[in-house]
């Protein structure tokens, strides 16, 4: 019974990953890709080029790694307190709680490409919502270029935070629901105030699932391709938005430098091996593989 699933995973999950390692050592261009079996061997040159030569996008892989690290870590750091606060705010029963819970999911369930497209209109120079608000409040002159130049990173970063915090919220809510009421009552009777209950009863039980959620969220931010692609699409995105997935994609499918793109993909996997391993281990600790 496992055969169909195993075949699907081997053929389309594991075999491509192994093939990619081989591809990254080949000189692959638009003309050699079709017959990549016979493509000339290139050694580690793709990797050397990735770090030393700016790609046709004008940035090196090192820069993209830096942007991707900043993007994924800042996203996680910023969404964590929002998600936890949101979960605490709808944990207790009150009227309209169902409505608020449904509302909280909205940023997360709206498709990523629709969010990115809306962000593109919201961040329009001068006429977009953000510039209108900032200009109206007198914080800026309302003429900031968010979609090109140095501010592009922050426009992308804010959009990701807006769209991704409910992920942490869902993890926290699931964790909160597993804290037995009896423990909270016992703590209250023993004189623990609200803060003490949160700090010494709830948080210790939450930390396992929360750590797992934060780790997984970081991995997802790192792999987010849609946001930068749609938000800045049409032209190659500005340097500040050249995250690793974008760098790989443009190298492969716009500039047909497939060998270099494969090298970037291998570098991505190498970066993700350690957090991925930690995730699998903590998934085991959380008892989900028994």
């Amino acid at each position, binding site marked *: 019974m496992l055969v169909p699933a195993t075949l*699907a995973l081997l053929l389309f999950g594991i075999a491509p990953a192994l093939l990619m390692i081989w591809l990254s050592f080949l000189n692959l261009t638009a003309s050699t890709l079709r017959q990549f079996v016979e493509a000339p061997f290139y050694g580690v040159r793709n990797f050397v080029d990735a770090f030393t030569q700016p790609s046709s996008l004008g940035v090196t892989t090192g820069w993209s790694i830096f942007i991707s690290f900043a993007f994924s870590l800042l996203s996680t750091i910023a969404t964590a307190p929002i998600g936890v606060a949101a979960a605490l705010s709808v944990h207790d029963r009150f009227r309209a709680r169902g409505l608020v819970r*449904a509302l909280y999911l909205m940023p997360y*369930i709206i*498709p990523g*490409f629709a969010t990115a497209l809306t962000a593109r*209109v919201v961040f329009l120079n001068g006429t977009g919502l953000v510039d209108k608000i900032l200009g109206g409040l007198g914080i800026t002159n309302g003429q900031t270029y968010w979609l090109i130049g140095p501010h592009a990173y922050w426009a992308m970063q804010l959009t990701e935070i807006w769209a991704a915090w409910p992920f942490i919220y869902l993890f926290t809510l699931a964790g909160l629901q597993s804290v037995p009421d009896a423990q909270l009552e016992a703590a209250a009777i023993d004189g623990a105030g609200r803060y003490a209950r949160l700090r010494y009863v709830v948080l210790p039980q939450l930390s396992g699932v929360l750590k797992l959620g934060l780790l997984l969220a970081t991995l997802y931010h790192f792999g987010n391709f849609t946001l930068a692609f749609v938000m800045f699409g049409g032209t190659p995105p500005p340097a500040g938005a050249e995250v690793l997935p974008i760098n790989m994609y443009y190298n492969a499918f716009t500039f047909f430098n497939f060998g270099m793109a494969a090298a970037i993909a291998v570098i991505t996997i190498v970066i*993700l091996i350690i957090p991925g391993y930690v995730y699998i281990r903590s998934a085991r600790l959380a008892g*989900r593989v028994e």
Partner: protein
Amino acid sequence: MTGDAVAVGGHNGARKSYRLRDEPKVLMPRSLRGIVIAVLSVVIVVPIGYMVLMSLTPNQDVALGTISLRVLGIENYVQMWSAAPLASGLLHTIIIAGTASAVSVMVALLAAYPLTRFEFRGRRAYLYTLIALQTVPGTTTVLPLFAILSWIQTTLSVSLIGTYWPIILTYMTFGVPLSTWLLVAYLRTVPRDLEEAGLVDGCSPLGALRRIVLPLALPAMVVAFVFAFLVGWNDVLFASVFTNQHTQTLAITLELFSSTSFSTGTPVYGELMSAAVVSSVPVVVLYLVCQRYLVSGLAVGSLTG
């Protein structure tokens, strides 16, 4: 806030009752809760409201930033269908994502059943592989899959890009592990006694799967189907490489509509926003209608990757 009187003492009647400072289960003071809900609601509603407002505003008014409630109209929702092939994009998405997720769920049920019912060598390794696969970003598999496709196309002189097969199979790579996880988590909660009763009554193991497990697992299968379907609905990366104008999905149609519109210098912002609203509404309605099942699935699905 005001706290309940809690009786403390043995059950033969508590003589003393302490008034707690607050309700034990309440973790956030009501005033702070109000502030958090208010702030988050504004942050959520304002951009979504702006998207809807822009979708009702004529293109040139969005571009000029002259937004007024007097010019609102549904023209964008009418014009966008002819401005971009959104209807065929929608159809392609339904065919591709629907097929991929339906097949994924069947394959996943076949896999989840032995994974929860039998002890065999490599069972844990299998479960770990399923988790591990969900941490691998799509950008690392799109290229080798593309290379294999190009190679097959050249070697066998068939054309695959522009057919539904490569993209359906790719979405199954994500659909199968996701659905398997959801079903494994669910089947663990289904007692084995029911199947054993069926076996005692003369069912074959496959018969027990079909007659007993399948009906019980149906709600989880629906959840798994929805999640696998959304993978295809939301994907931009694989669809942008493996589809062409004959198969392009709604996401790609919208992405191309947007990038051509922006690079030609006459952006049809209003129509883009109405198309964004139309691509979001089915997903949002789906969640709201079956929120209970999906949120529990979301927790399981996300907890498991």
